[in-house]
């Protein structure tokens, strides 16, 4: 076997993909040719280097349990109520917003019912219900092309836009330098009043930050809740109530909130 032939077959030889006859041919050539043997040895040591365990990325803790939980609940919900379960499962996938409409619609109905039967009592339960309302609003904002009323990355454009539309002036920060780009602002209706919704983006993830006055309430540090696979962080600061919601992971959400609070 010539050097040229050997070089062509060397990789298949290295990978055990050669038939026995040609494999013997390559081996015979390598035994008698220093150059080709050196080439072979170089690739073998490269292989050993690539198989170093330090280069292998094992899946992070929690990923498997999250997937199993999603699969389990998907199975259970689908058994319980066909289309609702399917919509819930789709909602967890951020590329399919259309069926999410069904869920958002249901949540909206829930909200309306609550509205008709009076305000929920204050406390954790109220926060929980409001958290769900915030998620519904977040989902709605992503569905129709109604993410922003004022699309702008400039805080000095977004903030004045709310003048005359709200009876308060929401603090608007541009966090593009920290990796959370301001996308714009929107007028939303939550907890029975118009509120400011600021829209930020982190990679493909959209973050909605809802702000409205909480007169007389003391400052409270952020609490984290998970609704429908969305992280919802709530805190009060300087007489304003804040809700941040996104499908972004918890750590980056906390980072975001830390930047807003600063």
């Amino acid at each position, binding site marked *: 076997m010539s050097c*040229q032939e050997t070089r062509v077959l060397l*990789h*298949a030889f290295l*990978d055990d993909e050669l038939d026995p006859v040609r494999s013997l041919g390559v081996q015979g050539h390598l035994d008698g040719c220093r150059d080709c043997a*050196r080439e072979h040895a170089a690739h073998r040591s490269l292989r050993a280097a690539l198989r170093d365990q*330090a280069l292998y990325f094992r*899946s992070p803790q929690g990923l498997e349990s999250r997937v199993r939980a*999603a699969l389990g609940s998907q199975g259970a919900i689908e058994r319980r109520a066909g289309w609702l379960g399917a919509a819930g499962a789709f909602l967890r996938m951020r590329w399919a917003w259309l069926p999410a409409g069904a869920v958002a619609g249901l949540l909206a109905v829930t909200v309306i019912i609550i509205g008709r039967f009076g305000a929920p009592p204050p406390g954790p339960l109220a926060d929980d219900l409001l958290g769900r309302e915030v998620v519904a609003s977040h989902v709605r904002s992503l569905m129709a092309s109604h993410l922003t009323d004022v699309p702008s990355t400039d805080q000095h454009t977004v903030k004045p836009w709310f003048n005359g539309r709200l009876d308060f002036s929401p603090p608007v920060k541009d966090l593009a330098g920290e990796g959370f780009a301001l996308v714009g602002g929107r007028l939303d209706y939550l907890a029975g009043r118009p509120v400011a919704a600021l829209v930020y983006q982190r990679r493909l993830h959209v973050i909605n930050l809802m702000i409205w006055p909480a007169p007389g309430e003391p400052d409270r540090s952020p609490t984290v809740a998970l609704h429908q696979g969305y992280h919802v962080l709530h805190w009060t600061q300087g007489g304003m109530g804040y809700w941040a919601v996104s499908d972004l992971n918890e750590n980056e959400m906390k980072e975001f909130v830390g930047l807003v609070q600063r």
Partner: protein
Amino acid sequence: MGPRAEQERGVARFEESVLPHMDSAYNLARWLTRNGHDAEDLVQESLLRAFQAFQGFRGTDGRAWLLAIVRNACYTWLRRNRQQEVTTEFDEEVHTLEGDALNPEKLVLREVDSARVRQALEELPAEFREVLVLREMEGLSYKEIGTVVDIPVGTVMSRLARARGRLQRGLTSRPGEER
């Protein structure tokens, strides 16, 4: 068998034949995106998508099947977020096999530290990076790699040859040289 039992059997079959390959899925996504957060998102997304499609899966190789879904998701992500990487010069000509050979500077690598290998591998175009990850880290056969990447077996071989040649050059060039 009722629909409920069938459903449970489907979940069990999925957990048995696809979920054990989560590490492989993550490793591939991590090397393609070069980013932990996005890799995690893409793997989770791919697994749920795989579950939806699982009813139609009749094959026996759950790993190659899952890796193909993960790879597609990663390339969609790359095209959206790293456009310049997917359009790097990439020609499939086999004739460069000879060009890669007999480089006098090519040394047998002894004790290469993994940080350097990692960097050199990260700097390869995605098409070269993925065949090396699939072959050397996952131990896939040419046929399996062909299934995941959707190319013929002969192309798998030539692509691996070029990938190894470029990785060798990346490792033996002095730091700062070449890129």
